């Protein structure tokens, strides 16, 4: 089932030097008081890739996500998305450009039904003032149902999102991120608190979407998940980039093993 634009062909997952990065951060820095949460991190995701971002707790993964998705103002560096400088953009602006994300602590609209959650998360790029004064159109609803079906939570469409289990909320949040048909999805610990069979579902869905041309950036503690899906992995430690490479290279890297696996 084609959730994205079917005509978009999957692109090479290798780091072709002639290719423009889809999302790029150059010397991104973010300080909380004296603490450098993210320090001079260079970062690039190319179209069609699945990139992993790992690191110990407090290493700055989520802060980097917040910087890239513009929820946090950065203290230094530059962020470009689709070749445009978005360093000063607001979150809704990068969202309308085609960047979606999920959150470590799931953010869904708890007192709205699952379906209404989905309907309100459509692509706002071309929504005129007059559109906003009307109920959601049927096309939005059919896309919402399609995605709920894809994520296997269609039977919950009329439940309040607050009534869902943690795992189901994660799936719903992925649905909300997919609604606007984004070009890149930033998933922050999409598998935490999710049971193993559901993790397989999520993995499967990410693969399908990637084949349809969607780019992914994943924060994960689940190393198997990263190793199975990602073509490249960044490792953060103390807000700095510790290593970068294929999952196999990372798993063999002494420094990473020291910092992350504590061996």
């Amino acid at each position, binding site marked *: 089932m084609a959730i994205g634009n079917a005509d978009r062909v999957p692109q090479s997952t290798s780091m072709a030097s002639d290719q423009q990065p889809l999302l790029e951060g150059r010397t991104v820095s973010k300080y909380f008081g004296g603490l450098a949460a993210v320090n001079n991190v260079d970062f690039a995701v190319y179209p069609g890739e699945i990139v992993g971002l790992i690191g110990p707790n407090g290493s700055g993964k989520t802060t980097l996500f917040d910087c890239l998705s513009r929820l946090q103002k950065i203290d230094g560096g530059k962020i470009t998305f689709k070749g445009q400088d978005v360093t000063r953009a607001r979150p809704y602006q990068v*969202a309308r450009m085609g960047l979606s994300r999920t*959150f470590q602590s799931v953010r869904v609209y708890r007192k709205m039904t699952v379906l209404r959650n989905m309907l309100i998360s459509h692509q*706002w790029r071309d929504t005129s003032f007059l559109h906003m004064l009307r*109920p959601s159109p049927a096309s939005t609803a059919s896309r919402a149902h399609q995605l709920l079906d894809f994520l296997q939570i269609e039977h919950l469409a009329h439940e309040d999102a607050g009534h869902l289990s943690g795992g*189901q909320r994660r799936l719903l949040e992925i649905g909300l991120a997919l609604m*606007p048909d984004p070009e890149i999805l930033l998933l922050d610990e999409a598998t935490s608190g999710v049971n193993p069979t559901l993790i397989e579902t999520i993995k499967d869905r990410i693969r399908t979407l990637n084949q349809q041309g969607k780019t992914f950036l994943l924060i994960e503690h689940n190393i198997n998940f990263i190793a199975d899906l990602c073509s490249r992995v960044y490792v953060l430690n103390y807000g700095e980039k510790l290593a970068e490479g294929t999952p196999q290279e990372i798993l063999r890297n002494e420094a990473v093993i020291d910092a992350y696996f504590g061996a």
Partner: protein
Amino acid sequence: MTNGPPADKNGNETGKKARFPSLAPVHSLLAGWTGLALWLLLLLLLALYPYTGVSSLALLVGSQIFVLVTLASNWNLIGGMTGYVDFGHAVFFGVGAYIMAILVTGAPLLISPQWGFWQALPASGAAAALFALLIGLPTLRLKGPYFSIAMLGTLVAMREIVRVSRPITGGGIGLNLPPVLNRIGDYYLMLAIMGLVVSLIWWIQRSEFGQSLIAIREDEVGAEMRGINTTLHKIAAFMIAAFFTGVVGGFWAWQNTFIDPDGVFVETRTVEMVMMSMLGGLGTVWGPPLGAVAIYLLQNLLWSNLFEWHLLALGLLLVLIVLFMPEGILGTLGDRSSTSLGRLLARFGRNR
């Protein structure tokens, strides 16, 4: 990969439904065209009411109730739907009232010629909306209690500013408006304003704009990250709510023929709006009107029976609402499992 949901989950859901019979279908009906049709029917009946040969006092009471319904519905737009609990909403009422008074008296600003009522009424609303824009830009950045306190501060500050701006506002002495007694006209005007405002809220609630406000209430960061220009939507909701509160303030000044800072910039008026919305059901279309009527009747009952204690009783009522039915009348009826009163009612229902 075909992982259906665990089967027992579904079983639980249905079990829960059976234990707490829900009025959700009725709710969705009322939120739809049926609700609007019933509302228009009610407006028609209210429009015919004066023809039944009622006293002028009844008309006054009618227009007062319409004022309360309109205020509660307006407050609900920003406080209930958008989730920005505005403890200073009466400031827009006051601004509207003063703009009306200043424009129609012409003095003390020496506007000449003086404005007629029909020109001044929309001007009251527009001034309040403009004021909401100026105040909202900084205050709507604040979250939760900080916004509430900032708005309360705005109300108190405006009262004092109006008091000291004697050349324009008449200061503490207040302003006298031309006395025009037209009970039937007041009744119909307020009926029209109320009809318009509640219908508008009904419309907003169905629209994507209204849904985006609820999304902002439920998770503002999430809403912003999913493409909603939260600042714009909040300001728009705030300005709409302020506009009609200003219009009502203007009307009130006209009907009351006298205003002073302590009469229009009153905390109690905000508390009333909050209480009515909460009693009826925050964020619902029909809750605040219902709550407004209920509180008005209750106030009169308490006032005539326990005159000295009526404020205390009202305060106690607010505490009880928050404790036992935080979702209000409509919310409690809609999902009984969510409130203790609802659970109590459901238990009685089962035992019967």
